[in-house]
């Protein structure tokens, strides 16, 4: 690997931007493809498939055997609300390799006893969220049921273009939420990105089952190609 490629790879990874290294394993020829450049690449179909799966693998193109090494950032999950659902959601997300952070200004909820081994920030979203570097590789979930806490979080998630945004509440609750967010300057296209009611419809009842429904929906958002994603939603 040329030093320039290694440097660029490390810089992209530090910025949490996905990269694929394409290597001709017969002769060592190599190039780096940034996620933003995939659409214009001759291998775009293969590259976008591997990136979506977050999986490295081999392809054969014009008699050449190429190894596509995918470097995708670790996905993050930010949970607004240290509630009962979050107690089930946080460990489940961690088992799926997400970096999880729970935010709730209410210290009675955000206690280490209730959330052993999970990074907790007992602050309001305006203080808690900026240092978390919420980005496109972040799933954002608001489950406090309290507009004072959920709404500023959701506005932040729109801004940072999270790949998944979900909020707890019935259709009626969500309609009221949409009104409030619009009044605070949110665009209709932003509001349309909120998954509410949250989670895939699997008839979940208990907090743990709701956690499964939420992680299933987040997984679909992360892994499915755009068309099938629409069908699943």
């Amino acid at each position, binding site marked *: *690997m*040329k*030093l320039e490629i*290694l*440097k660029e*790879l*490390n810089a992209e*990874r*530090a910025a949490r931007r996905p990269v694929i290294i394409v*290597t001709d*394993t017969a*002769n*060592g020829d*190599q190039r780096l493809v940034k996620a933003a450049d995939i659409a214009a690449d001759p291998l775009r179909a293969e590259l976008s498939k591997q990136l979506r799966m*977050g*999986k*490295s*693998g*081999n392809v054969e193109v014009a008699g050449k055997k190429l*190894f596509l*090494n*995918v*470097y*995708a*950032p*670790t996905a993050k999950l930010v949970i607004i609300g240290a509630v009962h659902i979050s107690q089930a959601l946080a460990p489940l997300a961690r088992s799926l*390799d997400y970096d999880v952070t729970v935010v709730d200004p209410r210290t009675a909820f955000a206690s280490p006893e209730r959330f052993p081994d999970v990074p907790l920030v007992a602050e309001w979203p305006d203080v808690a969220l900026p240092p978390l570097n919420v980005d496109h590789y972040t799933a954002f979930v608001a489950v406090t049921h309290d507009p004072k806490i959920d709404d500023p979080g959701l506005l932040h998630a729109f801004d940072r273009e999270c790949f998944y945004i979900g909020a707890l509440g019935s259709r009626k609750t969500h309609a009221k939420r949409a009104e409030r967010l619009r009044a605070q300057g949110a665009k209709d296209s932003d509001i349309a990105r909120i998954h509410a009611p949250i989670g895939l419809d699997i008839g979940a009842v208990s907090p743990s089952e709701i956690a499964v429904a939420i992680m299933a929906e987040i997984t679909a958002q992360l892994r499915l190609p755009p068309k099938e994603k629409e069908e699943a939603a």
Partner: protein
Amino acid sequence: MLNRDEDILQAAETWQKQGHGVALATVVETWGSAPRPAGSSLVINDDGTFLGSVSGGCVEGAVVTEALDVIASGQPKMLEFGVADETAWNVGLSCGGTIRVFVEKVG
């Protein structure tokens, strides 16, 4: 776990800058129950110091030896380890899988 290779690649860059000869070994293909998935990597410098893993410990010793050759020659190499292979019998993938490891010089 796939995504936790940051420090390994950073170390490769740092070693290179310090004037070390450095090689990168990457799992490019696996069959059966291989311990590490494709894309896992190991970086090796000319002291024989290495970071990361391509097999969870089974064949790293052999990979490091080959990597030192690659650092010296500059020519990339493809290595294969598996149950049907003589080398694997010696250095052994105890899990019974087969892996191919691409070793290349950095710089």
